[in-house]
């Protein structure tokens, strides 16, 4: 058995000995160093740009301005074509739309030379009025994308003449009538900010022309195949001229589902013919990247006195920033992956959204992808409802959460075919000691300890869209080579996909050599995002192995001289059922390399019409110091139903890591800009992610269900796990001191000021 085992990650040895496996480690030594000149203004037009002095500096190889790039708009969002994100970017534009927007690309032999050259570029700007507040963006007289060649490929309400990236509404039942009939309506507004993924390896890529004159891009990306399309579009060259290779990635969390940096070295290589490399500084990664969409969420939650939740009305206003990357799609999850949690007694729902352009950093994909924002609002409203009804929020949830076998109208009408959410709640309560600790206890040192709860769901891939594939061949010696199109970004998909292959092929995980990703050789996979890899690519592994087993059996039968129907696959050999003779896998493989007409390999693709949600319950226990307002999570219990657990170690670490990021979002991480639109939380000093002393402990358990459409019963885990901390901690703070923080993060200032009121 390989599935369900705590198998070490296949790349563990290399990663834990500091081997050169990341982009910067393997970049050619003679790469040009590419640096960007950034806009100092939130909204401006370049009137003049003079690069003549900069070009004369020693070492400078190439300076690119808006005059030198194709006038072809594209989106950096790594999504399946045709992308929902509007085509609203040029590699460099005369029109600058946020502080940090690139003004020029400079390539020199050394970083120092490139930075010196940037200082010599003279630019005259016309400063335009900036729209910094998302609430003022829609139909503002100031247009952020007035250009004529802006275009939306998909009809999602996008309109550049209204600063709209998307708008829409989904509803079932008569929401106003149901709310009017409810005994209690919680009517509240919540907000979340543009959190940074803060993966330890910042954005980076190098480019070169390969032996055949094609553009090779080696990038730290989650979406190699999308990068191929995006860069070809941006450079206005045929896709066939682009090859993308993904080595090891130092974390992604969605940040690298956007082609944030690849186009800059790419255009340098195309212009100079020379290899070029870009490595974002942490400051660039914090100011010109792809953070979470900041949202304002207005919830109306209607319930009866007995606690049955009858109606949920949600409006999400999402700030996409200067460009539309992931704008139309993230917002959808804010409702479609929050409202369905309360399907059981729900009579009506309405979910409406606006996604707007502003003159702030463009947002992107971040683990949770809108569900995190929506769940903070809906789960907080449920907690507020519990207090209004004087009910235990855990009991309120137990009454109302979706059950296995129920249809979820707010989740595109999908069925909850695997759902163990009730058990998640029950076990999380036991782990934290809910019944003894709810709501709060005064401690001897004057501090207050309190508990709070949040629930979550997510999807497993994008239904009807996401596609995963692997190819597996029987290799010399009787082992297997598996080529993967999905991108292991540290979470271990190379390993868990190998576990699934080993399970299907009845061999050791060591017998599966994995390789990925190279768009020239890997089978097409849309990439690792949307919690898709285990569920979607995992099924591709299962299908591929089925086909491969058939081929091995036929080849074995041929060697045994028996009928293929009598031949049985035994993992290390093929056996003839009639006379018990066997032929080993090694013999089959070896004979296949001599005068043979049939290749023993298979490549199957998979897509799913459904996206089965994993479910989770999280309970936070906090310690609040009433003198300072400082809140610390002393214990966090998370219980997740991700279907079958493929690798308990890796699933556990993902869950612990996701919870920690969620705690950071709730308490510590405070993205903010000044009144001119400049991001001031631009370093790890100002943008504080959790360290190992900031949180007491995080404990994780599984409450598995069996998902009938997933590989070995598995669903996803990667994103769901970030969603529970914000609402759980916000309610724990309320339970501790009566302060309800509806605008994240929950800073000591907000807690203290609230206590003073």
């Amino acid at each position, binding site marked *: 058995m390989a599935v369900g085992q*705590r198998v*070490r*990650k296949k*790349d*563990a*040895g*290399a*990663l*834990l*000995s*500091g*081997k*050169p*496996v*990341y982009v910067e*480690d393997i970049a050619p030594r003679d790469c040009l160093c590419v640096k960007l000149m950034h806009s100092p203004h939130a909204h401006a037009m370049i009137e003049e740009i003079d690069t003549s002095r900069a070009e004369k500096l020693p070492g400078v190889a190439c300076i690119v301005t808006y005059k030198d790039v194709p006038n072809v708009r594209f989106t950096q969002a790594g999504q399946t074509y045709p992308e929902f994100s509007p085509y609203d970017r040029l590699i460099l534009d005369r029109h600058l739309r946020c502080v940090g927007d690139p003004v020029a690309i400079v390539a020199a032999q050394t970083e120092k030379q490139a930075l010196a050259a940037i200082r010599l570029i003279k630019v005259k700007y016309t400063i335009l009025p900036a729209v910094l507040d998302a609430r003022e963006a829609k139909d503002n007289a100031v247009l952020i994308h007035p250009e004529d060649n802006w275009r939306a490929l998909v009809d999602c309400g996008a309109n550049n003449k209204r600063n709209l990236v998307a708008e829409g509404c989904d509803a079932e039942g008569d929401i106003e009538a149901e709310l009017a009939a409810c005994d209690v309506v919680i009517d509240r507004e919540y907000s979340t900010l543009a959190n940074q*993924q*803060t*993966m*330890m*390896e*910042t954005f980076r890529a190098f480019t070169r022309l390969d032996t055949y004159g094609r553009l090779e891009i080696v990038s730290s990306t989650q979406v190699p195949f999308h990068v191929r399309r995006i860069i070809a579009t941006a450079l206005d060259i045929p896709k066939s001229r682009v090859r993308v290779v993904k080595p*090891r*990635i*130092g*974390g992604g*969390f969605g940040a690298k589902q956007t082609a944030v940096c690849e186009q800059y070295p790419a255009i340098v290589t195309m212009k100079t013919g020379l290899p070029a490399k870009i490595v974002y*500084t*942490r*400051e660039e990664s914090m100011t010109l990247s792809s953070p979470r969409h900041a949202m304002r969420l207005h919830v109306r939650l209607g319930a009866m006195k007995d606690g049955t939740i009858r109606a949920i009305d949600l409006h999400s206003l999402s700030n996409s920033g200067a460009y539309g990357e992931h704008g139309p799609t993230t917002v959808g999850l804010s409702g479609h992956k929050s409202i369905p949690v309360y399907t059981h007694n729900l009579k009506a729902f309405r979910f409406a959204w606006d996604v707007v352009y502003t003159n702030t950093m463009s947002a992107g994909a971040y683990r949770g992808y809108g569900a995190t924002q929506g769940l903070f609002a809906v789960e907080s409203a449920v907690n507020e409802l519990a207090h209004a009804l004087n009910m235990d929020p855990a009991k309120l949830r137990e009454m109302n959460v979706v059950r296995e076998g129920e249809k979820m109208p707010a989740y595109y009408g999908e069925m909850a075919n695997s759902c163990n959410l009730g058990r998640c709640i029950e076990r999380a309560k036991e782990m934290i000691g809910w019944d003894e600790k709810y709501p709060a206890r005064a401690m001897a040192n004057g501090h207050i300890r309190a508990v709070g709860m949040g629930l979550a769901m997510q999807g497993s891939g994008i239904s009807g869209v996401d596609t995963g594939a692997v190819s597996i061949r029987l290799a010399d010696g009787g082992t297997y080579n598996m080529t993967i199109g999905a991108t292991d*970004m*540290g*979470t*271990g998909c190379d390993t868990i996909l190998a576990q699934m292959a080993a399970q299907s092929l009845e061999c050791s995980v060591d017998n599966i050599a994995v390789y990925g990703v190279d768009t020239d050789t890997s089978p097409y996979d849309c990439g690792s995002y949307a919690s898709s890899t285990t569920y979607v690519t995992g099924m591709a592994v299962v299908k591929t192995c089925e086909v491969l087993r058939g081929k091995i059996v036929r080849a074995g039968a041929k060697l045994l001289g028996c009928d293929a129907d009598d031949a049985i696959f035994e993992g290390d050999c093929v056996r003839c059922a009639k006379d018990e003779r066997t032929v080993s896998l090694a013999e089959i493989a070896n004979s296949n390399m001599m005068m043979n007409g049939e290749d023993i390999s298979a490549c199957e693709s998979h897509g799913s019409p459904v996206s089965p949600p994993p479910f989770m319950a999280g309970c936070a226990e906090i310690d609040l110091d009433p003198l300072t307002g400082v809140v610390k999570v002393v214990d966090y219990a998370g219980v997740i139903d991700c279907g079958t657990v493929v*690798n308990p*170690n*890796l699933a*556990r*670490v993902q869950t*612990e*890591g*996701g*919870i*920690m*990021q969620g705690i950071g979002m709730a308490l510590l991480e405070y993205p903010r800009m000044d009144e001119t639109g400049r991001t001031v939380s631009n*370093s*790890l*000093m100002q943008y504080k*992610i*959790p*360290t*190992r*002393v900031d*949180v007491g*402990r*995080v*404990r994780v358990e599984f409450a598995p269900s069996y998902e009938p459409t997933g590989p070995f019963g598995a669903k996803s885990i990667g994103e769901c796990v970030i969603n529970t901390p914000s609402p759980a901690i916000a309610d724990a703070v309320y339970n501790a001191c009566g302060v309800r923080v509806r605008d994240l993060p929950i800073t000591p200032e907000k807690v203290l000021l609230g206590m003073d009121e």
Partner: protein
Amino acid sequence: MMTVDFTLNGKRVSAMVEADDSLYKMLRGLGISSVKCGCETTNCGLCTVHMDGKAVLSCSVPAPRAAGHDIWTLEGMGRLAKALGDCLADEGAEQCGFCAPGLMMNVLALAKENPNATDEEADAYLAGNLCRCSGYMSQRRAVRRFLDGVVSGEWEKEEVQA
């Protein structure tokens, strides 16, 4: 440009640097891939190396200051580093791996200074080593097991067996 002579992982080396280069930059230039840069503000700990037996942030040490000193990186740490790596791998604690070398160098320094460290003491010692993937709990378990093995001499036994 100037020349810096120092000892790297037990071998005498010589590097050409500019006066304002960091030890980090010099080591990368010498092909040391284990040292990483995660910030420009001395917050992340990814570039941790040992200088004369003490953990330092190589981004914050001017390269010329290494002249005549003894520098060790993960590449040179031998069997104890391997044992620590095994503890981390058994927990799946490396995840993306980018922070691992810096963390490991600091854990190895801790093992020398205070192998009897409690979890709380170890967390405090390692607080400057950021990790965004793991949420630290698996690293805490791995460090516990490693330090216990240091105290019990388990890793030395392995060396004998090997």
